[in-house]
C-alpha cells in the first residue's frame, strides 16, 4: 500500500509578468538564478533536503523549459519508484475543462494525484522564491500545535507590511485574524505562501469551494478554514527569503550572492542546492582577464574584465570587454571591446563587438515603466545585438536585431525594442 506522510504541491504555473522579457518564453520558476541555477531549484532542493520525496509540480504558462529542466527529477534525487516528481499540467475533462484559474483551483484539479499517495499532510509551495527552509521542522511545529493549517510567515519591516498578506497571531502563534495588503497593518508577519494542510482539511475545503471562480489560497481557502473554526497557526521563519518577482529584486538577489560572506550562502556543505547541470568542464580565464567580486558558472570562457557580476555556465566574454554589475545567463556570448553596465542578459544571447549597454542618463521606460526601471538594461533570450551599438538605461531588447533597428547605432534610455514573442 502506498502511504506518504507529507507530499508537496509546487505552484509553478505563473508567468511572473514583472520580470518582463525574461519570462516571455519561460515560466518564472524556470528563470536562471545565481549563475547556474533556476528559481525552481530552491524549493525542489528544499523538498528533498527536508525528506519530502513526492512533489507535484503544477505548470501552465510556457512549460517547455520547466519540463525539460525537471525531467524525471534526477538532479534532485526525485526519480523514485513511488512518488518522486510529477509534472501536472491542466488537462481536459468531460465537463468543465478549464485552465488553472487560481492557486487553489490548480490544487483542486489535482485531488486525484494527491489522493493516490494517501498523505497525512500536504505542503503547498510556490516556485518563485529564493530561500533554504527545512519543511520537516515546520511539520513538527504543525504537529506539535495540533494545527489544521500552518502558514509560514516572516517578520517584515512595518512600513513594508502593507505589500503582503499579514497574519495576526496570539502569543501561542495561533492565527486570530489576517488581512490582505492592509493600509494600516496590525502585525508585521507576512505570509510566505508556504502552507501545510492536514489532507482531510484541505480536501474538504477544496471540495466545498470548488465552484468559486479563481479559487485562491489567500483569498478563499484560508478564510474558509478560519471561518469554520479550524486551528490555524503561523510558523515564523527567520532565515533568508527573497521574492524575486521584479527585475530589480531579481537583480538585487543575484548581487547578494557575490558578497564576501553572502547572507544566502551557496557554499555550505549542508543543505546543497541541486540543479540540472549540462555543462561540466571548468571555466577558463585567459591572460587578459580580470575577475573581481563575481561568481562564474562551469564552462565559461572569460577574456575580458568582470566586476560585481553573476555569470552563467558556458558564457563567453571577449577580450577588452568590461562587465559591471550585470547578470549574464547560460551560453550567452559577449563580443570584444564591449561595455556592460547593470545589464540582465538572458540565455543564448549574442552581443557583437564594441557594444555598450547602460550608457547615459536615466529616462523612464516608455512602454512599461513599472517593469523596466532602476537603470537596468534587460535583454531577452536568443536576442542578437549587432556590432557597435550603444544602448541607454531602463531599456529592453528582445529578438534578433540588426543595424536597421538602431538609428545612428543608438537606442536611447527608456526605449523598448521587441521583435520577438507574442507582444512585439
Amino acid at each position, binding site marked *: 500500500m502506498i502511504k506518504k506522510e507529507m507530499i508537496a504541491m509546487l505552484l509553478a504555473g505563473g508567468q511572473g509578468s514583472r520580470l518582463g522579457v525574461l519570462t516571455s518564453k519561460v515560466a518564472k520558476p524556470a528563470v536562471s538564478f*545565481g*549563475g*547556474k541555477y533556476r528559481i525552481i531549484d530552491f524549493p525542489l532542493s528544499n523538498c528533498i533536503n527536508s525528506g519530502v520525496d513526492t512533489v507535484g509540480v503544477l505548470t501552465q504558462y510556457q512549460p517547455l523549459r520547466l519540463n525539460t529542466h525537471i525531467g524525471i527529477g*534526477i*538532479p534532485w534525487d526525485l526519480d523514485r519508484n513511488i512518488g518522486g516528481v510529477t509534472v501536472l499540467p491542466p488537462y481536459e475533462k468531460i465537463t468543465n475543462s478549464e485552465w488553472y484559474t487560481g492557486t487553489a483551483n490548480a490544487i483542486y484539479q489535482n485531488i486525484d494525484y494527491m489522493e493516490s499517495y494517501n498523505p497525512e499532510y500536504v505542503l503547498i509551495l510556490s516556485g518563485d522564491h529564493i530561500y533554504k527552509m527545512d519543511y520537516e521542522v515546520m511539520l513538527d511545529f504543525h504537529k506539535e500545535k495540533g494545527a489544521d493549517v500552518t502558514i509560514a510567515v516572516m517578520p517584515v519591516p512595518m512600513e513594508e507590511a502593507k505589500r503582503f498578506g499579514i497574519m495576526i497571531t496570539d502569543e501561542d502563534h495561533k492565527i486570530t485574524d489576517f488581512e490582505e495588503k492592509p493600509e494600516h497593518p496590525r502585525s508585521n508577519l507576512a505570509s510566505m505562501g508556504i502552507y501545510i494542510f492536514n489532507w482531510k482539511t484541505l480536501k474538504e475545503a477544496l471540495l466545498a469551494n470548488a465552484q468559486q471562480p479563481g479559487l485562491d489560497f489567500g483569498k478563499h481557502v484560508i478564510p474558509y478554514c478560519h471561518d469554520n473554526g479550524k486551528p490555524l497557526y503561523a510558523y515564523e521563519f527567520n532565515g533568508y527569503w527573497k521574492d524575486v518577482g521584479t527585475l530589480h529584486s531579481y537583480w538585487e538577489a543575484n548581487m547578494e550572492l*557575490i558578497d*564576501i560572506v553572502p547572507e544566502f550562502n*551557496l*557554499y555550505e556543505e549542508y543543505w*546543497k*542546492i*541541486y*540543479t540540472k*547541470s549540462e555543462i*561540466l*568542464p*571548468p*571555466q*577558463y*580565464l*585567459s*591572460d587578459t*582577464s*580580470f*575577475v*573581481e*567580486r*563575481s*561568481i*562564474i*558558472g*562551469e*564552462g565559461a570562457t572569460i577574456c575580458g574584465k*568582470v566586476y560585481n557580476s*553573476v*555569470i552563467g555556465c558556458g558564457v563567453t566574454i571577449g577580450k577588452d570587454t568590461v562587465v559591471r554589475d550585470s547578470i549574464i545567463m547560460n551560453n550567452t556570448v559577449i563580443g570584444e571591446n564591449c561595455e556592460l553596465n547593470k545589464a540582465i542578459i538572458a540565455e543564448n544571447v549574442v552581443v557583437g563587438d564594441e557594444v555598450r549597454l547602460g550608457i547615459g542618463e536615466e529616462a523612464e521606460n516608455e512602454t512599461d515603466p513599472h517593469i523596466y526601471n532602476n537603470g537596468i538594461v534587460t535583454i531577452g533570450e536568443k536576442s542578437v545585438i549587432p556590432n557597435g551599438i550603444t544602448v541607454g538605461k531602463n531599456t529592453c531588447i528582445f529578438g534578433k536585431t540588426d543595424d536597421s533597428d538602431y538609428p545612428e547605432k543608438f537606442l536611447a534610455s527608456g526605449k523598448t525594442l521587441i521583435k520577438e514573442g507574442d507582444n512585439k
Partner: protein
Amino acid sequence: MRAIGIILAGGNSYRMKELSSKRAVCAMPIAGSYRSIDFALSNMTNSHIQKVAVFTQYNAGSLNEHLISSKWWNFGRKQGGLFTFTPSVTAENNFWYRGTADAMAQNLSFLKNSHEPYVVIASGDCVYKMDYNKVLEYHVAKKADITVVCKDMPANVNVDRFGTVKMNEESRIEEFEEKPVVAKSNTISCGIYVVRRRQLIEMIEKCAEEDRYDFVKDILIRYKNMKRIYGYKLTDYWRNIATVDDYFETNMDFLKPETRDYFFKQYPDIYSKVDDLPPAKYNPGAQVRNSLVSSGTIINGTVEDSVIFKETYIGNNCYIKNSIILNDVYIGDNTHIENCIIESHDTIRANSYYVGENEIKIVVERNDRYVI
C-alpha cells in the same frame, strides 16, 4: 550493439609517486572536473556500447565512489549496464588479479554470458576521445583476430614504458615489444583492443590453463605470429597519464584553446559524475590568468597558468603559478606555490612556501582544518 566493453582499471603505478598512494590511477582527477576513467567510459557510451565491465583492484575506494551511480554515463539501464569487478575469493580461486588476462579469466562468466560478438578492451588511464565503432569496422574489414589501437609518438618522446609495435604495409603487427629498453619503433600500443568475444574467451582459457596472466605478454606477444593482429592508427589527441610528468602535462594541455575545444566543445561530450557545487567565486584581490577553475572554488589571491580543481579555497595574497590544485584543498593566506601538484583534501597553512625546483613537486599536507 555489436560489442561489450572492458575497462582495465586495476593498476597502480610507482611512477605516480605519492599521487597513487590513495587512489587507482584511473581515479586521478583530470582537467578540473573529470576523472581519468571518464574518458574511456564516455567513449564506450558514445560508441553505443551498453554493457561495460570495470576491473579494479588497487585502491579501488576512490574509483568505486566515482562509479557508484552509473547514470552519469548513461549506463543505468535495464539492458546492459556498468559492472564493477573487484577480485573475490571463490571455491576455485583465492588469488588477487595476477594480471590483466587473469582478471578476465576470473570473471569469464561476464564474457560467456554476453551475446554480443565483439569485445572492446580499453584502459582507464588515458585521455582521449574515440569512436570504437571505427576500430570495430576496421577490425572486421581486415579480418583480424585482434586489433590494437596504436599511435605514432614524436621522436623525442621516450616510449620505454609503453608497448611498441612494428607493422607491415598492410598494418599487420609483426613485432610487439613490451617496455623495451631500446625501442625499435616509436609506434606504441594505446592499450585499446578489439577482439571477437569467442576468440577472447578461448585465448583467456588457454592462458589460464598454462598459468599465464598478462594480456599483452601472454596473448598479444605470444600469438603475434599465429593470429592476425592488426594495428589501427589513432591520430587525434591521446595521452596516458600514468607518470607524474605526463599527468601534469596532460592537465596543462587543457590550458590550450585547441585541447579545450576538442574535448569540451566538439561532439561528443565527455561525461562525469555531477557534484552539485555552486559557481566559482572571485572575491576582491582575486587575479586569475590563463587558468582553469572548477566549481565550488573560492579565490582571493593570484593564480597563473594553473588548473584549479573543485571546492578549492585560495586565501588572500596567495600566489599560485604553474601548478595543479586537486579537489577540496584549503590554502591559507600569503602562500606561494609554484610548479606543484597539491594533493586533494590538503590543508596548507598560511604563509607556506612550496616550489618545485627542476621537477614537479607533490605536496601532501594534512594540517587540521577548522570549518565553521
